[in-house]
């Protein structure tokens, strides 16, 4: 059996026994019960499985669990603090930026990643950044609105 791998997910420590090349997504969903990150393609093409590793958005279906060991991982479940939504979650909710919402976790995680490195993105920046996230329901314009609104909220909070 594989050696235990130490994971740091949403500020909690876990020790999991999985073969080291198992995709992080499977461990998050099947072992830790964090099912907010979705399987959409398993090929890094749709973004539904996006999580933050060391603050940067990563496709968890493409990351071997061993490569995430010891690094801080944030999933959609880790954004809400003390019952208060993260500004990006709040902005998506306010904008009604989902229909079936299966892509929403990945969209939100990618947006959190974007706003951490670029707090005031242009339209082109957002489009470029979210190009790897698929929404099949065609809710893109509202997602763009939500990202802009979230940027505004985060800048106001930072002030």
């Amino acid at each position, binding site marked *: 059996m594989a050696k235990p791998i130490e994971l740091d997910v949403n500020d909690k420590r876990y020790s999991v026994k999985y*073969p080291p090349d*198992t995709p992080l997504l*499977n461990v998050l*969903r*099947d072992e830790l*019960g*964090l*099912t*907010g*990150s*979705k*399987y*959409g*393609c*398993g*090929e890094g*093409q*749709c973004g*539904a499985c996006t999580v933050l590793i060391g603050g940067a958005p990563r496709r968890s279906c493409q990351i071997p669990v061993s490569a995430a060991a010891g690094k801080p991982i944030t*999933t*959609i*479940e880790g*954004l*809400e603090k003390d019952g208060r*939504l993260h500004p990006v*979650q*709040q902005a*998506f*909710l306010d904008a*009604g930026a*989902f*229909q*079936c*919402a*299966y*892509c*929403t*976790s990945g969209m*939100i995680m990618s947006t959190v990643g974007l706003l951490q490195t670029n707090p005031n993105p242009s339209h082109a920046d*957002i*489009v*470029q950044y*979210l*190009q*790897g*996230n*698929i*929404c*099949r*329901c*065609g*809710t*893109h*314009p*509202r*997602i*763009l609105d939500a990202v802009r609104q979230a940027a505004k909220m985060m800048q106001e909070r930072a002030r």
Partner: protein
Amino acid sequence: MSNFEEKCVPEPERYEFSAAPMHQFELARRDFFKLLGAGIAVFAIAKDALALQETAPGPRNFRSEELPKEIGAWVHVGEDGSVTAFAGKAEIGQNIRTSLTQTVADELRVPFESVRMLMADTAFTPFDAGTFGSRTTPTMTPQFRRVTAAARDLLLGVAAKEWNVAPAGLIAADAKVTDPVSGRSLRYAELARGKTLAQTLPAEDPITPAAQWTIAGKPIPKVNGRAFVTGRHQYTPDLRPEGLLYGKVLRPASFGATLTSVDEAEAKAMSGVVVVRDGDFVGVAAPSEREAQQALDALHAHWKEVPQISNKELFSYLKQNAADKSEERFRKQKGSVEQGLAGAAHRLDAAYTVAFIAHAPLEPRAAVAQWTDGKLTVWTGTQRPFAVRDELAGVFHLPLSSVRVIVPDTGSAYGGKHTSDAALEAARLARAAGRPVKLVWTREEEFTWAYFRPAGVIEVKSGIAADGTLTAWEFHNYNSGMSGIETPYAVANQRTQFHPVPLILRSGSYRGLAATANHFARETHMDALSRAARMDPLEFRLKNASDPRLRAVLEAAAKSFGWPRKKTQEAQGFGLACGYEKGSYVATCAEVAVDRASGAVRVVRVVEAFECGAIVNPDGLRNQVVGAVIQGLGGALFEAIEFENGRIKNPHFANYRVPRFRDVPEIEAILLDRKDIPSAGAGETPIMAIAPAVGNAIFDATGVRLNGLPLVPNGLRST
């Protein structure tokens, strides 16, 4: 498909239909108060529902609009004042959980938040043929209104009896009944306490007209929105019952391949792995997805394959293999096309093609199956929970009452989730394993083994008088289907015909069905005719459109778009298209920019006007309309399934291109609210006009007439 599946799955429908199982009304009614506790309940069922169901159209019936007329809505007011409404429909992202909740709250006169909608659970919701055909709003809205109005009357009656007054003078509002004479009032919760009052629907109860709606008609946000932005909502693939195993199914090497041999020894030797072989069905279940995949990889199978055509020969194949004699019901004729053509000042003959495309819902087909004491429960993302239940019962020789199908709010479908495949596969594996099994199709399985929107060839022959009046219209659709086949324009001489072709790839419903193909052909042809007549495309359509609702959407879209527009740059183009289907109207204007050097086509701006009668939720409707435009852009510009010899050549998002952020133009949706017209559905019609509008805009920009969908999978190389 394998023998197993052939045995259990009837051929997937190419066009929507509704098969008709027996109603489970009495059973559910007995369970009703047990489930919900005491209170007041109203059931609605048409007396002749069973008879109607027994004569309902079966598979391969093309009259898709003729669904059973049965009423399927129940509502319950509990002792705590909570309201539960029951519908057999599934929430798949179209936002009906919210719009139906609004309707119930509105008619019962209670706050929106106090209503819970229990949907798509065969143990507790009324029978429903399926969530398709834009039928939820036009059928469920009036049914819920009638049921809820009857519940309100029951509550008024209880209060009247309590106070010994006539019910006619009492007022129901804000979840209570008030007597305006005495000023007394009783809350619904108080009125329902200790009661187990149930009644079936009275013949007619007046319902609230749209002009007086207070909760319906408002842009109320999606129910449970917070569960979606926090990741808490559980879709089928997120369920993890105790003792869960993960399933995988061995897929044939190619379509139609038959299993000649399979060596299961290596897989069976793996720890914790269950291997099931049942005819051509071979599947595995294992404690983790990884182990299931390893077991699947360890199965050594040999297949006998059959040679098949490729997408390169597709359109000639469709023409050559059409049924010689098309059945009467596929034909429509009026006047004499020959005479109309003979007298025409301009004639035009053209052929149009549409490719196979995939729904590619982001949540793949998935099911979790669990057997307990010989009873089967399956959670699955499907548009037809009752049909899935019936198929499971048939395959496993169970009474219907031993099978329960539950549909968690699902990660979209677009017409693609009518079949039972994942449910049957998971149930078969779970039975063998003696433990619950989850089966989630991979993206490659989705692209390969799900069904497609059928490809087609459409031929149009037409004539116009010198003043632009249509004089003749002949329209032949090969394979793609009949939806939206009839022209909405006034033409004295018409012939319309659908020509079925034997299946090439697994084909089925897709958002809008063939209306997208038929509108593409018709509206592209209309554009070409307007050029022949030297008329403005808008003016030409208005000249031939007598339906005031069609004219209204055309005029609304044109006005906001600024039609007719002058070009401000080279290779800029403007196009429009319009149509009618399933009780609603659409008109779309598009602006494109073509890069002459690279041939790249960019859709810059889209204005779409849509009218579906009285709007129940303008916020949800706007999401559907804008979403349909964006999804429609994929099929319009670049989506196409490539296949050869029974294999899909592009079964991945990396080589099957779907619309992404960079493809999204500026979109304006104009919603015309007709409170005087009953609400129609809105999930499909808004997708119909975008492809021809874009194609016509490309012609306007370049002079190149593109008659095939997708229009520019590789850009406009020829210019």
